[in-house]
């Protein structure tokens, strides 16, 4: 890399890139540069590798380990917005910016939404926005992102005249501040938006397996453009975790009914057993710990099944990766929220179900306590397998096959903590094993899950 520490680069250098899709080479030795304060147009036929190149620069493809990714802070304006349909527009806007490490003042939100013509939609859910309004919101997030390099994939899709003008004005402000942009487009941008002509820095055409980069005539680097905006952006591990937990709780709050289904499932499974094997109180007392535990395992596996699915589909994970947001923190936040949303209710359902099983109150206490601690580990592992499930056909089957061996120790210590107390031993030892396993899983499994999620994004 030519740029040394302390010197602001006048231009951003890229490549050489080797574009591949599905093992096939699309283009070799793609090499270009973008002058500060300018944008370049990326053109090429459908399937020529425009999006592949943008994803590579955004750090989303395997092999995108070259310097350029880490060198410039990047925002990727992709087809997937990274918005969750359940959230309120205002909340989503604030959350998106916080994820990028940018604090938003309450007073600025309304003004920003006003500028994008989304004032009236502020309290709607994201799902109620039209496609064009989605794009407007994403434009707004990009404008506030304080990233040096904007990677923009087909910006004019679904935008009306007013929104196109908004796009042009936001891009001009960004470039005037010394930023840079790469715009993939199938139509000439300056024809649609003549105000962008002075900022065109070049044209990169990908055709066949070769690429051709032409520098536009107009490139002269003015003095005020010489400094790239490279602010210290980023978000600490702790605040990533609280952000993630906060967001998960908002998602749960958007659909509060969803948290009861695993508990209902648990309740139904547990109540099947007396029908199958008889309802003598001594028998029920003997089988209760095992049945409650196995059923809770199934309920958690079912409930955690789609833990990462929506975030993957809507491009949230990809945006996090580009922003350098910690996926471990995301996982830890999700696990914690699931524990609150699935784990605690399933543990508490033991009380009514214990009464149906004629269990003594003390046994119910122990059962509920052991489930509460055990569910921390159960949920963390289920989350790990759910992340893996994003890559698989028949994810549910694979998740169960992988999960059951892992659940064996939890099941043994969980049920032991109940049966041992019934036999007159003290509660402590198995429950301490459960607690230490819970601590251990919460410390390690989010890290492993993050590795799996990185694989998923690639």
């Amino acid at each position, binding site marked *: 890399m030519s740029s040394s520490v302390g010197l602001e680069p006048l231009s951003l250098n890229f490549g050489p890139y080797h574009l591949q899709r599905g093992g096939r080479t699309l283009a070799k030795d793609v090499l270009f540069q973008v002058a500060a304060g300018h944008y370049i147009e990326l053109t090429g036929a459908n399937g020529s590798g425009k999006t592949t190149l943008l994803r590579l620069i955004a750090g989303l493809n395997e092999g995108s380990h070259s310097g350029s990714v880490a060198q410039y802070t990047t925002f990727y304006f992709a087809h997937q917005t990274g918005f969750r349909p359940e959230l309120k527009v205002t909340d989503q806007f604030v959350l998106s910016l916080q994820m990028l490490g940018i604090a938003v003042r309450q007073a600025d939100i309304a003004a920003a939404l006003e500028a994008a013509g989304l004032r009236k939609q502020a309290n709607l859910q994201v799902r109620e926005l039209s496609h064009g309004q989605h794009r407007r919101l994403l434009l707004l997030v990009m404008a506030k992102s304080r990233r040096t390099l904007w990677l923009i994939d087909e910006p004019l899709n679904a935008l009306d005249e007013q929104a196109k003008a908004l796009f042009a004005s936001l891009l001009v402000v960004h470039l005037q501040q010394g930023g840079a942009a790469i715009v993939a487009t199938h139509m000439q941008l300056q024809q649609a938006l003549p105000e962008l002509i002075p900022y065109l820095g070049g044209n990169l055409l990908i055709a066949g397996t070769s690429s051709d980069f032409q520098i536009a005539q107009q490139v002269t680097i003015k003095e005020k453009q010489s400094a790239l905006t490279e602010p210290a952006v980023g978000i600490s591990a702790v605040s990533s975790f609280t952000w993630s937990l906060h967001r998960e709780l908002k998602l749960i709050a958007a659909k509060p009914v969803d948290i009861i289904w695993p508990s209902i499932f648990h309740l139904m499974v547990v109540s099947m057993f007396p029908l199958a094997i008889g309802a003598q109180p001594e028998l029920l007392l003997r089988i209760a710990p095992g049945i409650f535990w196995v059923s809770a395992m199934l309920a958690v596996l079912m409930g955690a099944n789609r833990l990462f699915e929506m975030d993957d589909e809507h491009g949230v994970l990809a945006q996090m990766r580009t922003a350098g947001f910690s996926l471990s923190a995301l996982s830890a936040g999700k696990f914690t929220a699931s524990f609150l949303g699935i784990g605690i209710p399933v543990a508490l359902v033991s009380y009514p179900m214990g009464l149906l099983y004629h269990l003594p109150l003390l046994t119910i206490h122990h059962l509920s306590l052991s489930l509460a601690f055990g569910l921390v580990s159960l949920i963390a592992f289920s989350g790990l397998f759910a992340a*893996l499930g994003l890559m698989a056909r028949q994810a549910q089957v694979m998740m169960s096959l992988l999960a059951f061996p892992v659940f064996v120790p939890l099941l043994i210590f969980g049920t032991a903590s109940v049966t041992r107390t019934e036999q007159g031993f003290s509660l402590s030892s198995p429950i301490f094993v459960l607690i230490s396993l819970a601590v251990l899983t919460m410390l390690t499994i989010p890290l492993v899950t993050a590795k799996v999620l990185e694989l998923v994004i690639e």
Partner: protein
Amino acid sequence: MNLIQPFVRLSSPPVFLRLSAKASTWLAWAAVLMALAGFAYALFYAPVDAQQGDVYRILYIHVPTAWMSMLLYVLASAYATIHWVYRTKVSAVMMRAMLPTGAWMTLLALVTGALWGKPTWGTYWVWDARLTSELILLFIYIGLIALASMVEDESKTDRALALFIVVGLVNIPLIYFSVVYWNTLHQGASLGMAGESRMASEMKLTLLLCTLAVWAGCAALVLARAHWLLQLREKK
């Protein structure tokens, strides 16, 4: 540096393809010969066990396969670690090739154990700590094989598989100790294998032969499968 040089060379696919083809043939022949000798020893040369009679002879298959089932998992996790760090093609195919063989060895150990248990203990299965752990090891193998077959993208699968093999390795001692704990808790059948330490020297020799035969056989199978997998990948 010189010490690891041969291994680095082995990680090159053409070198590995050449060597694995040769080695698997040789190992297969060695396995057949040693197995024939081992079976002959086991059936005719080794003396009758004082307590169990002739039925103990099945242990000459049971013990080597049970060892092999665990050894293959450890080896697979070694290759998994190598693959996670270096992402070489050879480590990926070796790791993948070991799983089916490991699963078969586990199944064989369980089945021979059951066949030995029926006349000796009077039952095909007891919920003993060792047997239960072996059963769960089979489940782990099956889960990993399912993972290997269900994920679409090949290079992603390799890395996910590597990660989960290592997760499983961490989990195995935990499972074993929890099962031992469970066994003491429930006062299950505490039937040990009789007379392992008081083996006659002929028995030891026979067991050694059978173990070597199983080792060579598994190595041949794994190398042949790795060869085949790598060939498929190189063709693409």
